[in-house]
């Protein structure tokens, strides 16, 4: 019948063109002085995000700009919106955002861009057409697949496994999980079975109980992947105090400070992460380069990122920080974040 449906809306909507790509880049332009950058993390009380943002704030000082961190106290989609609006009103030069919801933040971000504000997404991407660049901590594909490899090695490619994720609609998590599932279809994992994806909502206590539930519900569980810093530490804590210690292998993404204790007491053998400080650093440089006109976010441009050297912008305006690093008992003491 009549009316506006998804199909009719999609067919009529013209593919929106990114406004940024119209201007030409000048790779040799100097970085402007006194740039004002604003980091907008998922939530300000997430320790991981704090490390990232503080590194970015430090980086801004390096190139003579100022940066600040503002944000909501809960990681909900809508609470970031008022902050984007306010930052737009304040006339920042660039907004760096770890989007809680790729689409919800889109409208306000577009309005910001209309006012000439550059948008850099980091950690968790916003929709492609409402940001200039996405700084990906690691290739999503690489993260997903490597986690499965890591776990498979530890459990001998055999047994039931589960995933303990953050919130059910976190963009980055879902992308990783997609690649994990894909990796598992390969023949070498034919004896491994993914029995459950659980959500701990990035809340410590909830993740703790989810782990507990998983272990009870699936007595044959051999391994858990928790690709979120909150989840892996909560999971490790439960396992270390339970009878499952030494029987169930836990891996995922975590910070060394959080996990040190559990690596030392043998609850966890290996886990991975990139250096969050580098992520913040790179994002700050990307924002500065965009604002100064060195890059526009088009594929193939090269970003000069201070001490990190150069990174090439990939497809869809993505810059990849680097491969994730695997921590284990032998190397963990070299890190402090």
């Amino acid at each position, binding site marked *: 019948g009549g009316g506006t449906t998804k199909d009719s809306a999609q067919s009529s909507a013209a593919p929106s063109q990114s406004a940024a790509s119209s201007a030409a880049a000048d790779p040799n332009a100097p970085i402007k002085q006194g740039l004002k950058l604003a980091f907008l993390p998922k939530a300000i*009380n997430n320790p991981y995000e*704090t490390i990232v943002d503080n590194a970015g704030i430090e980086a801004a000082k390096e190139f003579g700009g100022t940066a600040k961190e503002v944000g909501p106290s809960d990681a909900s989609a809508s609470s970031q919106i008022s902050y984007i609006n306010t930052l737009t009103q304040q006339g920042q030069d660039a907004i760096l955002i770890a989007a809680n919801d790729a689409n919800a933040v889109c409208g306000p971000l577009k309005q910001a861009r209309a006012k000439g504000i550059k948008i850099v997404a980091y950690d968790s991407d916003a929709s492609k057409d409402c940001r200039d660049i996405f700084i990906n901590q690691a290739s999503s594909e690489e993260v997903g697949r490597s986690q499965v490899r890591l776990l498979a090695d530890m459990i001998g490619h055999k047994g039931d496994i589960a995933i303990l994720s953050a919130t059910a609609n976190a963009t980055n998590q879902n992308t990783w999980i997609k690649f994990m599932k894909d990796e598992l279809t390969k023949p070498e994992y034919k004896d491994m079975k993914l029995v459950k994806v659980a959500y701990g909502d990035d809340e410590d*206590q909830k993740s703790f109980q989810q782990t507990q539930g998983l272990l*009870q519900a699936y007595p044959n569980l051999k391994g858990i992947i928790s690709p979120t810093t909150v989840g892996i530490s909560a999971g490790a804590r439960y396992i270390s105090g339970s009878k*499952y210690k030494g029987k169930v292998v836990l891996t995922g993404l975590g910070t060394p400070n959080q996990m040190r204790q559990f690596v030392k007491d043998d609850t966890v053998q290996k886990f991975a992460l990139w250096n969050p400080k580098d992520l913040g650093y790179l994002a700050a440089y990307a924002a500065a380069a965009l604002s100064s006109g060195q890059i526009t976010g088009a594929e193939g441009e090269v970003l000069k990122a201070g001490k990190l050297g150069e990174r090439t912008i990939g497809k869809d305006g993505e810059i990849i920080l680097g491969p994730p690093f695997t921590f284990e008992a032998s190397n963990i003491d070299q890190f402090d974040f």
Partner: protein
Amino acid sequence: MTAVGAVDGAVAGRSARGIVELVFRARELSLVVALTALVLVTTAVNPNFLSGQGVKDIFLNTSILALLAVGQSLVVITRNIDLSVGSVVGLVAFCTGKFLAADPGGRGVVVALVLGITIGAVCGLVNGLLVSFLRVPALVVTLGTLYVIQGLDHYIAHGQQINAVNLPPALLHLGNEGVLGVPYLPIITVVVMLATGYYLRSYPSGRDFYAIGSSPEAARLAGVPVRRRILAAYLFSGALAGLAGVLWLARFGTVVADSARGWELLVVSAVVVGGVAIVGGVGTVYGAALGAMLLTTIGSALVVLKVNSFWQQALTGALLLLAITVDRVLAVRVTRLLRRRNARHGA
């Protein structure tokens, strides 16, 4: 004739009392039945649920919520409410953690407990003073202090995290070990619950709380020190929230500012499911603790039963509604029974 009437009345009255008592007991009884049914069904599906580890987990999970519910029920019995408990737990867990982490060798469990309970009690004191002496509505005040304490907590924490490695081992021991296989946490909760319950039932000052909730005006006329009791209820609730904060830290080891965020409604749910009337005057701390246990056990059971995790929340809500509905229907039945066996028309 009088004598006959009186005797008749007494006979009819006794059976009526029996029914009333039964209903009061029935609340706790029906909770126990529901809990047993839940555990049995879950165990039938997955025997692991009732394994040593499983039982231990149920009790560990319940302890903190039950402790908060015990404190909250005292406040609710006086016809008030304390929405700030969740924030207090967060504040205490973080502050105590930070304090201990500064010198994990020198500061032990006792210091942590004293500090935590003191912070909690101070929060309770503020609530209590505002509600009892300045007579501002409890809901508004504690909603206000919820925001204030939460803000304070976040301000102090500012994205930091307390890690278990930095905490004194004795504290973590408290959270995860026990005597003779029984963890300390539930022991603490049960002791607090029994002591509170006994006090409320058997001591005149304990009855004051019920009197105030039942009719504040009558309580004042009867010479009950209304303000002091309300202050005491908040102080107690705050102190227990402080204790819960320390236990939280001990159990989870790693804390950020967000511990127990949003728990205020969970605690109130537990109390209501446990049969404490939200309008005051009725209920026991045993019921409240059982309510807390039922709520947490439902959560655990649904995971074990492999119920789609999206259904969990919906089912929890539905069960809460079921609990209060059954309660109400029972109460109406009893009232009708009382009416029919009316002492005056009796026999």
